[in-house]
């Protein structure tokens, strides 16, 4: 699991790359929390284009990030999910609660 960021005008983009499972989820969440503390963004987007694998641990990370942002009066979203993470997102139904954009469903 690798994490990188871009920040512009109140919007924080957190890029997740590699595999996000239970083994890496706690560390990923700790890093995401730290980044939100550092930038205090209005919106946070989790960019999942480089995520080659995600299971329901990733769903917990998305939900926790969204809760964290809502506490601050902001929003979290998911952008550019690769195919496998998108299937997990679709199966979980969280796209009814959280914006998912840039998915290539073909």
């Amino acid at each position, binding site marked *: 699991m690798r994490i990188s960021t871009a920040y512009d005008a109140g919007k924080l983009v957190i890029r997740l790359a590699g595999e996000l499972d239970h083994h890496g989820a706690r560390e990923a969440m700790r890093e995401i929390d730290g980044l939100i503390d550092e930038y205090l963004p209005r919106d946070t987007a989790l960019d999942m284009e480089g995520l080659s694998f995600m299971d*329901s641990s990733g769903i917990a990370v998305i939900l926790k990030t969204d809760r964290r942002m809502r506490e601050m009066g902001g929003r979290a979203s998911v952008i550019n999910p690769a195919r496998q993470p998108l299937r997990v997102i679709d199966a979980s139904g969280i796209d009814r609660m959280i914006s998912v954009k840039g998915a290539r469903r073909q």
Partner: protein
Amino acid sequence: MKSENYIKLEFPSKSVNEGFARAAAAAFAAQLDPTLEELGDIKTAVSEAVTNCIVHAYPDELGRISMRLRIMSGGRLEIVVKDAGRGIEDVAKAREPLFTTGGEERSGMGFTIMESFMDKLRVRSSPGRGTTVTMLRAIKPRTGAR
């Protein structure tokens, strides 16, 4: 049912083995010539089943997890993930979407995802003795090759 090929693996309930288990399952299933999507589904379901053992069956200690994969006639794949941990009191409740005893680090979607990615999911558990999860998935033969 005739088994055409199988593997059996056993490993301790360390979270670093989640990635190993799903990669091993995918490597074995590759001989069925699955699509990338089918392979992703198999990896995801295995990851959920093994994570359940690590988080719920053995919350405070390391225990043994066994995983067996079988290829059966007609290109059907059976995956069995078994632990000898604390077991599930109420299996029906555990299978409900969003239900979890794992706190906010867990989403409660594990069984829901196994169910939606596999053709069949059977969960047998006895409290104090362990849980066995059996999953079935047919891999469609692709036209041309094979």
